[in-house]
């Protein structure tokens, strides 16, 4: 069974076609990268697969469940870490995880056990009772990864997982991703602008531009086919050098205003 299957998936916003009839599949246990310039339709695609947005046309299945007709089953099978933080920063790390666990129906014993497990995985055990407002950006991202795993999802969506993070945290997160994929066989779909990250982590990548998939293959095959030394060269070859602007929404503005570095409580 494919972990993800889309057929003619389309999303239109007021006449603007953000995702244009895309059909692709992600194999179970794969680490799949979705690459594309700003505004290409990556996040919109992920939101549709995560049942946050309804497609205008087309269909998709996640873990065999239809994204329109079996939404709660899809939601139970996936974890997602968004590009912008989605934590309650007036609660502690532990409380954020507990909130999530209860929302997903974990019983009391499983909750406590799982919270400890995920906190250990992302190395935040001793920061569990700190209010999230006092976490650094890297800690918040790690907590969100922990949270996405709480309910034992089969598929994990990571939207720009290492964006804006220091190199140490980035490498740690790459380690978590590989560990989750190899040890727990979780299918991982990630979007990223960092080509070397995609090259390093992903077994296959799909390059999306103007809402359409322009290439889909293993990084090595893409480099061979297009005769380019790096994935980034392939990408620029396929999507061109023109800068793409997307509309900045208010939460992106907020994120930029937040200071990049916090006191060193790593």
């Amino acid at each position: 069974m494919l972990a993800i299957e889309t057929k003619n998936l389309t999303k239109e916003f007021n006449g603007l076609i953000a995702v244009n009839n895309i059909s692709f599949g992600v194999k179970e246990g794969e680490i799949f990268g979705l690459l594309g310039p700003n505004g290409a339709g990556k996040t919109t695609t992920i939101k549709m697969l995560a049942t946050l947005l309804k497609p205008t046309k087309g269909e998709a299945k996640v873990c065999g469940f239809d994204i329109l007709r079996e939404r709660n089953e899809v939601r139970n099978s996936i974890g997602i870490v968004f590009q912008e933080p989605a934590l309650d920063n007036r609660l502690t790390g532990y409380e954020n995880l507990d909130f999530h666990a209860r929302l997903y129906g974990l019983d009391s014993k499983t909750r406590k056990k799982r919270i400890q497990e995920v906190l250990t995985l992302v190395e935040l055990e001793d920061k569990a009772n700190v209010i999230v407002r006092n976490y650094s950006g890297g800690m918040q991202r790690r907590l969100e990864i922990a949270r996405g795993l709480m309910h034992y999802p089969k598929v994990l969506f990571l939207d720009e997982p290492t964006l804006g993070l220091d190199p140490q945290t980035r490498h740690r997160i790459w380690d978590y991703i590989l560990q989750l994929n190899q040890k727990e066989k979780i299918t991982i779909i990630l979007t990223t602008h960092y080509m070397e990250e995609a090259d390093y982590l992903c077994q296959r990548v799909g390059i999306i531009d103007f809402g359409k998939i322009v290439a889909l293959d293993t990084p090595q095959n893409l480099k061979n086919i297009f005769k380019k030394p790096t994935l980034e060269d392939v990408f620029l070859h396929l999507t061109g050098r023109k800068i793409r602007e997307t509309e900045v929404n208010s939460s992106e503005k907020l994120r930029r205003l937040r200071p990049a570095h916090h006191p060193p409580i790593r």
Partner: protein
Amino acid sequence: MKSNNLQTIYVMWLREMKRFFRAKARVIGTLAMPFFFLISFGFGMRQGFSLPGMPQINYLDFLVPGIIGMTMLFNSIFAGISVLWDREFGFLKEILVAPVKRFAIVLGRIAGGITTALIQAILILILSLFLGFKILNPLGLILAILFMILIGIGFIGFGIAVASILENTESFSLIMQLFVFPTFLLSGAFFPVSNLPKWLKPVSLINPLTYGVDGLRASLIGFSQFSPFLDFSILLIFGSLMVALGSWLFNKTEI
């Protein structure tokens, strides 16, 4: 792992409680306004106040139910609108992607909002006792709390409905000016509705808070301009409509 509705409602309520008890500045801030209104108007308007054709009523006694209604209004709208803050700060995504019934989320938010609003309204009531306000009898207190809850449900539902349509928090202050202030100013909180000129009176009469304040007055001091049964029925209808509307709109929210 099937999530159940009761857990969902509980966890939304729990989150509200934690956030409320941690934001001490906000609690003091939202108590300050009703408190100052009470002190200034309650004492300032003491002389020369009489209702047409009504027995002699102390203005403080007249005002306190109004201030409590106002407290419930402000806190309920704020609780409903908190959906907007969740959207702005990203937490709404976490809520929308969970395998739960959206209606349970709405109920949980209502439960949390009612509890925090009630706590604040009761604090104001206690404060007013120190200022000389006297409650009619214990049954009246229970009825008053019932009216407070009804007012809360209606306006939280309204807040959720509005927040589900709006996209950002800038519109929030617009809502406050355009809607909330006229609502409590024309609700009979500060002066009897009958004092209003003919062209303004209809606004008061379609204002749900008017009936809420009236019901509170009936319960707490035994005086009201409408029948308490009327007040209760109108609030019940308003509350049901708003919860239905809020749930329906929240259900359709995408992010």
